[in-house]
């Protein structure tokens, strides 16, 4: 199949939902309305850390138009996205852990009445000392200062330590050792659509919820646990998501409360969060402090690296268990690293919980690593592009921490980006105030392991063929704008040789669609694509059999193209796809098939080796050209070049779109965006006006260069094309600034005040706390390694 010329794959086609989205037809969660619908609102804590002595809701409950009021006592079951850290409550029971933590929920006849009733709820808080920084959390080790009771060490959610190879010997072999510290400030997803959930509970005791969620399957599980309803009684429908970027991947309080209130009142209940609430619900980028120490030969060859990360997790665990591992996992997959030590810790603080945002836990260490390498190159007098090119990870290799690299197009990415940007001509050659910077990166094409341990497929696809030749594809995958519905249509159209516009796609409905784990970790194209191909090929076997008989052509000479099943040797010997389906249904009965996908088995076997695994790594290289006014320190990004190894571009328009959106998002994180708090735990800028993000005026021209490496694990060779683009842009900005004005800003975002302080020699290096990390898990490649081959 792979040698075949594609008819759909690789073409710049419309997305299947593109016209609906540009005509206003697409119905997002808040566009839905049901008869007798009530409106829900959450009462949120005004304090960052407090014990709840009591809650009085009777006045609120008596307000005309209020149908129900619930508190933590009504939903006591804890939940959380990771099975081992179930520390969230739909409504706080004993304690609130950040400003905005929900304590009560109401359902009322209108939003206005619901809001009015919240003012009548009296909460008696006993304020506790808030912990608002990583340093404070590490210092508050007394039992009385705990934010959570369940974790072993006070305020430490998770501490990890790994040693891959002999670190002492590795550093001893180095000619020079370099050390740096960095800080990546937290920031928000800021999707244009606020979270929304609408729940309905019928007299037949079944719950249906429409929600703006990226992970309907995980929400399904969490609802079942919290509501104590079997999953068979719950239907989760992910409405088209108006922007996710990772921020709608957790099960949320408003989803639990909408459901519970619908069960209590017997009426549909809708919660739509305000923009301000979205900043407190958060789950955005973790603030991370980092320390990196690297031993190199005088020619720049890496000998050993020791990396430490300190994550500010906020009030709950969310995805944090995975995040802390991610801050250490992928340093090894771009450049050869013979020895590596990683230590990471995630602490609880009294701020909104952090979670996964585009790149999940990897933009922070990538920023540190790539700026650190730029500094090393500068000190050694080596071109930073050359420094990388001389030590790229080889294809079909296993990294020092046991990650299997299949294909890598990083060399081509770097060379093409450098050529297009005229790197050699510009680096160190631009006038003062103008600069060019470079960085590279790698990312996963889907997490190798599911969130909860199980041996079932990560993605399932079901295809139904009807008598008119119609094709319907069913899959649990969730379109968050990235085009996952279109990917299914493209794959099935390619396999059946039909127009993608003729295919119906039904997705993200737990009653109708087989499980797909969700839109996170850039997993969807690889996993649903493979599952869809498998389902198609089962059906093709039947279709080819009847077509072969009808046309008197051997099955291995048949192909599907242009809406026909035909002989490859004599293309005029053909029947239409619809006719072929009719014959197949006559022979075999009703036509349908399923396909599924599970990632391959992986070489590493140490505890903690599950994070960073993936069917295939994408690679990216970016060059940023910018100007910086030395008087005002205003930075203007002039142009960004980004080269990305996506394995195979299913639709270059969509891949470029992901690239341009990632570059834009990276520039916001590099230069403007920050989620920061006052001493009383209040967000400093909980509005779109004050939380600065790039507009058309701050977003430069972006040139995307796509590299195709045809990965054996990917459908038609495809790898990730959703998040990896973001990673190299942020350090490339910092490196370009150094080229422009000769100062290093190791702390994001790079704002004019920091640049001015640096120009005046007043910017202090990032301080990193001391922490007693646990003894490392030691692992060396070759121990228990088993590399499966794709059959």
């Amino acid at each position: 199949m792979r040698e075949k010329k594609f008819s759909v794959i690789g073409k710049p086609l419309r997305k299947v939902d593109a016209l609906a989205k540009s005509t206003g037809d697409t119905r997002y969660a808040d566009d839905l309305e049901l008869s007798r619908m009530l409106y829900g609102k959450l009462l949120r804590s005004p304090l960052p850390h407090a014990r709840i002595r009591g809650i009085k809701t009777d006045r609120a409950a008596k307000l005309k138009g209020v149908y129900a009021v619930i508190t933590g006592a009504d939903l006591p079951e804890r939940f959380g996205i990771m099975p081992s850290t179930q520390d969230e409550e739909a409504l706080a029971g004993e304690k609130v852990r950040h400003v905005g933590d929900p304590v009560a929920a109401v359902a009322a006849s209108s939003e206005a009445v619901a809001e009015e009733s919240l003012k009548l709820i009296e909460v008696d808080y006993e304020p506790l000392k808030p912990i608002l920084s990583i340093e404070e959390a590490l210092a508050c080790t007394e039992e009385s200062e705990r934010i959570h009771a369940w974790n072993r060490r006070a305020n430490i959610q998770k501490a990890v330590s790994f040693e891959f190879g002999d670190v002492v010997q590795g550093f001893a072999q180095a000619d020079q050792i370099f050390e740096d510290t960095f800080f990546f400030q937290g920031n928000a997803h800021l999707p244009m659509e606020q979270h929304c959930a609408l729940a309905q509970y019928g007299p037949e005791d079944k719950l249906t919820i429409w929600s703006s969620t990226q992970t309907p399957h995980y929400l399904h599980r969490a609802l079942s646990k919290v509501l104590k309803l079997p999953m068979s009684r719950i239907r989760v429908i992910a409405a088209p998501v108006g922007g996710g970027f990772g921020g709608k991947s957790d099960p949320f309080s408003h989803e639990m409360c909408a459901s519970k209130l619908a069960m209590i009142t017997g009426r549909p209940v809708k919660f739509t969060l305000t923009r301000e609430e979205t900043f407190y619900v958060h789950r955005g980028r973790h603030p991370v402090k980092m320390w990196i120490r690297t031993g190199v030969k005088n020619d720049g060859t890496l000998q050993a690296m020791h990396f430490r990360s300190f994550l500010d997790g906020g009030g709950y665990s969310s995805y944090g268990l995975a995040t802390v591992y991610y801050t250490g996992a992928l340093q090894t997959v771009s450049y050869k690293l013979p020895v590596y030590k990683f230590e990471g810790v995630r602490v609880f603080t009294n701020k909104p919980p952090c979670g996964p945002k585009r790149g999940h836990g990897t933009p922070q260490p990538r920023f540190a690593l790539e700026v650190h390498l730029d500094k090393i190159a500068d000190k050694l007098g080596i071109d930073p592009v050359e420094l990388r090119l001389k030590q790229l990870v080889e294809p079909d290799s296993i990294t020092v921490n046991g990650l299997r690299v299949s294909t890598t197009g990083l060399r081509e990415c770097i060379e093409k980006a450098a050529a297009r940007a005229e790197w050699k001509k510009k680096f160190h050659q631009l006038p003062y105030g103008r600069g060019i910077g470079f960085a590279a990166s790698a990312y996963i094409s889907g997490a190798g392991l599911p969130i909860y341990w199980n041996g079932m497929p990560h993605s399932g696809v079901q295809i139904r063929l009807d008598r008119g030749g119609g094709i319907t594809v069913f899959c649990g995958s969730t379109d968050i704008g990235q085009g996952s519905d279109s990917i299914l249509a493209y794959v099935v159209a390619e396999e059946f040789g039909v127009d993608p516009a003729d295919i119906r796609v039904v997705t993200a409905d737990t009653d109708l669609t087989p499980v797909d784990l969700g839109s996170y970790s850039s997993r969807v194209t690889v996993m649903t694509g493979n599952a869809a191909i498998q389902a198609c090929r089962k059906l093709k076997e039947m279709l080819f059999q009847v077509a072969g008989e009808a046309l008197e052509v051997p099955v291995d000479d048949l192909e599907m193209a242009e809406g026909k099943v035909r002989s490859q040797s004599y293309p005029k010997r053909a029947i239409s796809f619809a006719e072929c389906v009719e014959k197949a249904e006559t022979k075999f009965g009703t036509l349908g098939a399923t396909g599924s996908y599970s990632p391959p088995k992986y070489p590493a076997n140490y505890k903690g080796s599950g994070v960073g695994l993936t069917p295939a790594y994408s690679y990216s290289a970016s060059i940023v050209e910018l100007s910086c006014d030395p008087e005002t320190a205003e930075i203007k990004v002039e142009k960004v070049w980004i080269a990305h190894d996506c394995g195979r571009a299913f639709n270059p328009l969509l891949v470029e779109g992901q690239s341009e959106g990632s570059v834009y998002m990276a520039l916001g994180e590099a230069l403007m965006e920050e989620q920061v708090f006052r001493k009383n735990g209040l967000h400093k800028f909980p509005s779109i006006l004050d939380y600065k993000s790039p507009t058309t005026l701050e977003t430069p021209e972006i040139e995307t260069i796509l590299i195709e490496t045809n990965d054996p694990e990917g459908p038609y060779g495809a790898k990730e094309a959703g998040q990896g683009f973001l990673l190299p842009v942020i350090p490339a900005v910092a490196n370009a600034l150094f080229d422009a004005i000769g100062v290093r800003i190791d702390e994001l975002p790079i704002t004019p005040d920091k640049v001015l302080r640096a120009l005046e020699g007043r910017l202090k290096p990032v301080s990193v706390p001391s922490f007693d990390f646990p003894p490392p898990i030691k692992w060396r490649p070759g121990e228990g390694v088993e590399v499966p081959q794709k059959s």
Partner: protein
Amino acid sequence: MMRKSRKESTAKLNQNGLTKRLLRLRVNGEVKEVATETNKTLLEVLREDLGLTGTKHGCELGECGTCTVLIDDEPVLSCLVLGVESEDADIVTVEGLMRDGRPHPLQRAFADLGATQCGYCIPGILLTSRALLDKNPHPTREQIREALAGNLCRCTGYTKILDAVELVVKGEVA
């Protein structure tokens, strides 16, 4: 801690005895009559009373551009205008961009070039773009940038949006 929202003021006014009024609105070329509270924003009237949910809300504070509609050919943030202020004006929402059941060239260009990702900000961006092209059928890329500077999009990096508007300017929409 939470900032007062528009809904709080609505509730107060209602308690003060503020009643509904019959509004006569000209939306997408059709006259619509609707009885609604006088303190409702045009955004709320469009979405809640007229069922025109193509107009989206992103902040309801006039900061994001998502709720943009055209009032007498000018792009206006419908969250900052009251329904009662909009009588006697020509209001165009994304639903009114279609002509004779066919998508407007801007709508087709946005679909063809992948300018819609999640699509949530797109209605507002389409209307701002149409207002620009009505006044200046041949804007430069910089002028398109300027015109769209008040409409935030978190998905696209704006590139394909600018490309799509340029495609219409060049008259190259299929």
